[in-house]
Each structure stands twice: as structure tokens, then as C-alpha cells.
């Protein structure tokens, strides 16, 4: 598989009055393959959101290079194409709505790309179907639930047919049902449509379905591996301000007392099967 995202020795500084106030990213290198599902974790201030914003050229590195599908983010003439290929979804559903009906909201990005109206209509239909909001097409977005609003934000992005979806804590403000809806949608995009996903989250349970977890601490990448490696490994996640999902903590206790629980048991059904 080829790489869709490539960061080469990337550093990023935030400036204040012309001086470096904070080195948010410190010499990071990372490659992400087409179709991968990456969970990005780390405590507040570890650099996750800065990294996310480098992926579609909202920010460009102070030094180093970010490549998207063979395009360099620091080249002005590549930026529009990069933003079409890498879509971002943010934390707060209310800040991402721009229109007065659901269909217009999805169409907004497409109109800006100059796509003709019959095609826009087709793409809106398709995007709403993919996030399960077809029956809300003519509704006012502000009357949707939190989970529906986030799915609408995702629809607006996928209508532009991006190759990569970057989500910065998309479930932080949602209730359990809304969270489930959004997570299912992200997973479907990845599994069925082959969209590459970079998912930032503070909920460790949400990372268990990822192909790979990347852990950040103070501007550096400190871990990069499969969920079972990250959560069963030796690195003290609590030192990094993180934690181990409840079920995996239970597995550790059972294992330490001699029950044979394989390391790749990550979800409830697998654990039930092993115990039954």
C-alpha cells in the first residue's frame, strides 16, 4: 500500500511578538498508508491538534515537510487540492454548520469547488445516505441532535470525496447514542469506502478499532503500534496522562492471576467468548 500522508522531520512553533513562544511539534516523522485507520492520542497540549491542522494545510510546518498524496502542503498552489483530499471534522457540532437546511449545508463545500448543480444534487443525496441522514434532507440543522449534527459535518466533508478524514475529538460533546452513531459512521467510511482516517480522541475505548495508535507527548511521537501493543505494552500510559480502557484493565487483572486471556482480546464479545 502506498502512503497518503507523510511527515518528514516536522517541527512547528507558535510565535508571540515575533519570538517562539512554544514548540508544539518537535521533529516528528510519521507515515500513514492509504486506507489506514489511525487513532491519535495524548494529553492536552501534547501537539495532537497542531499535527491534525498540518495535515490539510491549515498550518504549515516551521521546518520539515508534510506530503499529502504527493502534494507538498507548504506550496501555495497545492493547498486547495490538499484541502479537497483531506477533510477535517472538529469537536463542536454547532460551530460547523453554515446553512439553513441540511442539504444546503452539505452542498456548501461543493459549491465552493465550482461543481455543477446536477452533480451537486447527486453528491448531496449520496453523502446524506452514507451518514444515515437522508430523511432529514430538508430539516433545519440547528434542530438536529448533537450526533446528527456531527454526522452532517461528516457528510459535508465526504461529499467532496476526500481520500482522508481527520477528526479532532468528534465525540467529545456527544451523548452515548450520538457517540455510537458517529463512531459507526467513521468506521463505515473507513472499512467500506477505503477512506483513510486520523481520529483524535481522549476516550481510550474509541481507539480499540483502529489499525494503529499513535501516542504523542510534549510535541513528540512516543508510541506507534497496534492497540494490543500499546495497551499491553510496558510504557506507562498513566505517566503520559492517558489510561487503559476498562476492559483491558480487567484483562490484566485476570491474566496476572493466571487466567489465559490472549493479548489480542480487545472487545467485550471476544472476552465473553473466551470466558464461556
Amino acid at each position, binding site marked *: 500500500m502506498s502512503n497518503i500522508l507523510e511527515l518528514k522531520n516536522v517541527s512547528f512553533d507558535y510565535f508571540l511578538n515575533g519570538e517562539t513562544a512554544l514548540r508544539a511539534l518537535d521533529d516528528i516523522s510519521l507515515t500513514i498508508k492509504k486506507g489506514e485507520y489511525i487513532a491519535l492520542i495524548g494529553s492536552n497540549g501534547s501537539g495532537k491538534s497542531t499535527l491534525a491542522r498540518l495535515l490539510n494545510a491549515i498550518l504549515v510546518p516551521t521546518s520539515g515537510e508534510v506530503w499529502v498524496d504527493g502534494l507538498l502542503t507548504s506550496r501555495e498552489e497545492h493547498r486547495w487540492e490538499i484541502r479537497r483530499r483531506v477533510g477535517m471534522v472538529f469537536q463542536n457540532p454547532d460551530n460547523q454548520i453554515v446553512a439553513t437546511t441540511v442539504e444546503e449545508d452539505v452542498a456548501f463545500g461543493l459549491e465552493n469547488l465550482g461543481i455543477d448543480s446536477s452533480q451537486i444534487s447527486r453528491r448531496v443525496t449520496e453523502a446524506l445516505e452514507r451518514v444515515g441522514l437522508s430523511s432529514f434532507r430538508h430539516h433545519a440543522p440547528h434542530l438536529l441532535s448533537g450526533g446528527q449534527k456531527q454526522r452532517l459535518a461528516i457528510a459535508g466533508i465526504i461529499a467532496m470525496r476526500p481520500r482522508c478524514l481527520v477528526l479532532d475529538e468528534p465525540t467529545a460533546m456527544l451523548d*452515548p*447514542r450520538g457517540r455510537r452513531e458517529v463512531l459507526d459512521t467513521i468506521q463505515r467510511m473507513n472499512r467500506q469506502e477505503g477512506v483513510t482516517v486520523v481520529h483524535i480522541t*481522549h476516550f481510550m475505548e474509541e481507539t480499540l478499532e483502529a489499525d494503529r495508535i499513535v501516542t504523542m507527548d510534549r510535541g513528540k511521537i512516543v508510541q506507534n503500534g497496534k492497540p494490543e501493543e500499546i495497551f499491553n505494552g510496558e510504557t506507562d500510559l498513566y505517566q503520559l496522562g492517558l489510561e487503559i480502557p476498562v476492559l483491558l484493565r*480487567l484483562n490484566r*487483572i485476570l491474566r496476572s492471576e493466571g487466567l489465559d486471556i490472549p493479548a489480542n482480546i480487545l472487545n467485550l464479545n471476544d*472476552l465473553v467468548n473466551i*470466558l464461556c
Partner: protein
Amino acid sequence: MLEVKNLSHVYMPGTPFQVEALKEISLKIEKGEFVGIIGETGSGKSTLVQHLNGLLRPTSGDVLLDGCSIWSGKVNMRAIRSRVALLFQYPEHQLFEETVYKDVAFGPRNLGLDEKELQKRVRYGLEQMELDYESYKDRSPFSLSGGEKRRVAMAGILAMKPEVIILDEPTAGLDPAGRRQLLALIEKLHSEEKLTVIMVTHNMDEVSRLANRLFVFSAGRLVLQGEPAVVFNSPQKIKEIGLELPVLSELLLKLKDSGKNIRTDLFTVEEVGKEILEYFRGGRSCKV
């Protein structure tokens, strides 16, 4: 200590936007309890808690504090709000003073306390939140991290020396370390400072471990109440109203469903681990 009687609340009554947010709610909260309030977004949780210290006036029904209606006109609303303190969602958005000291002192200052008592209160509030008084008092709230800001906002509530604290999704948006720390501090306020705690949350794992009683809301109605073990023993109902079970409860219920004689009323990893080990070792089964 707190009693809600037949309370209904209608937003924008008499307009086309009329919404009945709460329908005939009755409940009692005793002194020293730690209660959890759960339900989907829009189920009425936040509307309910805003009635508990008189921020909202019921459309019908009543709220009683120590047996007295807070709307009888006989009690001072300000006194009620210092006894029953409410911390809103994302309270750090309401920080506004130049220093941490001034921000924490804002509430108690309105109670008309003198400077000496005020200083004591600020120190108390910050220390309860594990923020060192000397090193934080002169800092700008805006220079703090998200978790620190949240704790400063909480210190401002505690400086009022309330008897009851109502926390509306206190851990929303925090990172895992921030979440763990704040929950540990809330637990301490309950166990050591003997505060009555009312916590609104979407996190079933947390609330099942912390609360001694739960109130479950759906579409403006109180649909379930009781100890976590009782509430989460109705998995069908919980899922029907859009919530989920704590992951450990779900595990135990599935094991029980598969015919294992196992307890389902446990909510910490340690307890559940012990129960499963005992089951497999204690002769109740011979597998694994």
C-alpha cells in the same frame, strides 16, 4: 434535604416553540448522597438541575430545601444558591477576572464577607482542588491549562461553602488525566467534606462507580431510579432510551446470560476481576 414535587417545566409557553422539558417529576435527595443524573441530550437533565437552586422557576410543582419551598417568598434566594451551588457545563468559559484569586472570590464576595474571611474561603476552594494558593492566586486564569481552569471554576463554587454541589458534566472535554484527577477530587469532597453531590453525566462507567443512586431521564420524564445495581439491571430499558450499560455490567450480564452463576451488581475493575476469578476457581465452574 432536597425534594422535587410534581415539577413540570415548559419553555416558551403559549408560543409555537413551546416545549415541555420536564413532566411531573418527583424525587428526593438525602443529605450526604452522591446521586447521578443520566439521560440523552435533551432529556431534561440540565433543566432539572437548574430548578434545584432556583435558577429556573417551575411552570408547576415545587422544589423544597429542608422541607421549605424555595418559591414561598420566605427564603432568601441568594442564601439558597450559596447552599446549593451549581457548576455549569464548560464552567471555564465563565472565568473572567484578571487573577485566579479574584475569580474564586467573586461568588463569596457577593455574600458580603470581609476580606479576611474571603481570603480564607479562596484558600479553601483552591486547596480542595489541589491548586496551591500561593502559586496560583496571582496568575491569570487564561494562562492556565484546560484542566486547571476547570478546577479554578470549581474552586469558586467551593469557596461559597455549599452543602450541595451540582455538577453538570464536570469532566466533559478533559483529557484522561484531567478527568481522573477531577473525579478523585469530587469523590473526596463527598467522603471527607461530606458534601452532597449531584452529578449529571454521559459516562456510565464513571457514574456507576461513584453514585449511590441514579435518576434516569428520557424525554422529560423520570423513567428509572435506584442504586446503580438496580438501574443497570434493566439493560433493555437503558438501551431503549439511548443510553448504554457500563462496560463491566454488560460483561457480567452476558456471562450470566450464558448460564454462569455470577454477580452482576459490581462496578469496579477490581471487584469484577475478583468475582470472575472466584467463579472460575471457586468450584462454581471448571472451565479456563
